[in-house]
């Protein structure tokens, strides 16, 4: 069946360092991927997305990398700040699953001052 998973449930980084959050997906037909950030008591907040015709996309302090060969997705956050502390979810979507957005289990990012 379809599943999206994360390698690390919790990631602790020093303020100012770069963070890398990884995600594995199982549906090779997935063609659209999104990273979300969820702070306590809030809804998931869109960070960045990437479609399967690309392997890298950059935003402000964030970069998403997509490796379709090994079905792997990563989110890189540069110069991590205390405000980046949250739970991060990757999500995948494919036409053959009626464009349902399927979420991974989430990684908690803790930023040490």
């Amino acid at each position: 069946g379809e599943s999206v998973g994360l390698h690390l449930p919790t990631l602790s980084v020093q303020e100012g360092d770069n963070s890398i959050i990884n995600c594995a997906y199982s549906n090779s037909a997935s063609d659209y991927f999104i990273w979300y950030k969820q702070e306590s008591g809030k809804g998931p907040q869109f960070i960045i997305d990437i479609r399967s015709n690309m392997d890298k996309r950059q935003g402000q302090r964030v970069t998403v990398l997509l490796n379709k060969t090994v079905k792997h997705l990563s989110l890189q956050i540069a110069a991590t700040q205390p405000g980046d502390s949250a739970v991060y979810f990757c999500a995948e979507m494919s036409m053959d699953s009626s464009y349902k957005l399927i979420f991974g289990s989430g990684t908690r990012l803790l930023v040490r001052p």
Partner: protein
Amino acid sequence: DTAVSQTPKYLVTQMGNDKSIKCEQNLGHDTMYWYKQDSKKFLKIMFSYNNKELIINETVPNRFSPKSPDKAHLNLHINSLELGDSAVYFCASSPGQNQPQHFGDGTRLSIL
């Protein structure tokens, strides 16, 4: 001016009751969704509407019934609430089916 707003934010009620959660989006999006997030933070889609038409209906008990009176609103009615319904319910919207989804801040439902 909140983009996707849900009411109420908290809902505490007893088993067996019927309750509704309302959702409104002012983004002009065509597609709206309901998700359930359990105590382990796992997010799963329940329903999706596109231009008031139901397009995704996951394996959800038929006690849950979505209603879309217009494109900007998607409400969720739950009959005969059970303990296992306790969760955070999120509404979301997107311009189209294959587009980024924008989420509300959730409704925390607690069943006593």
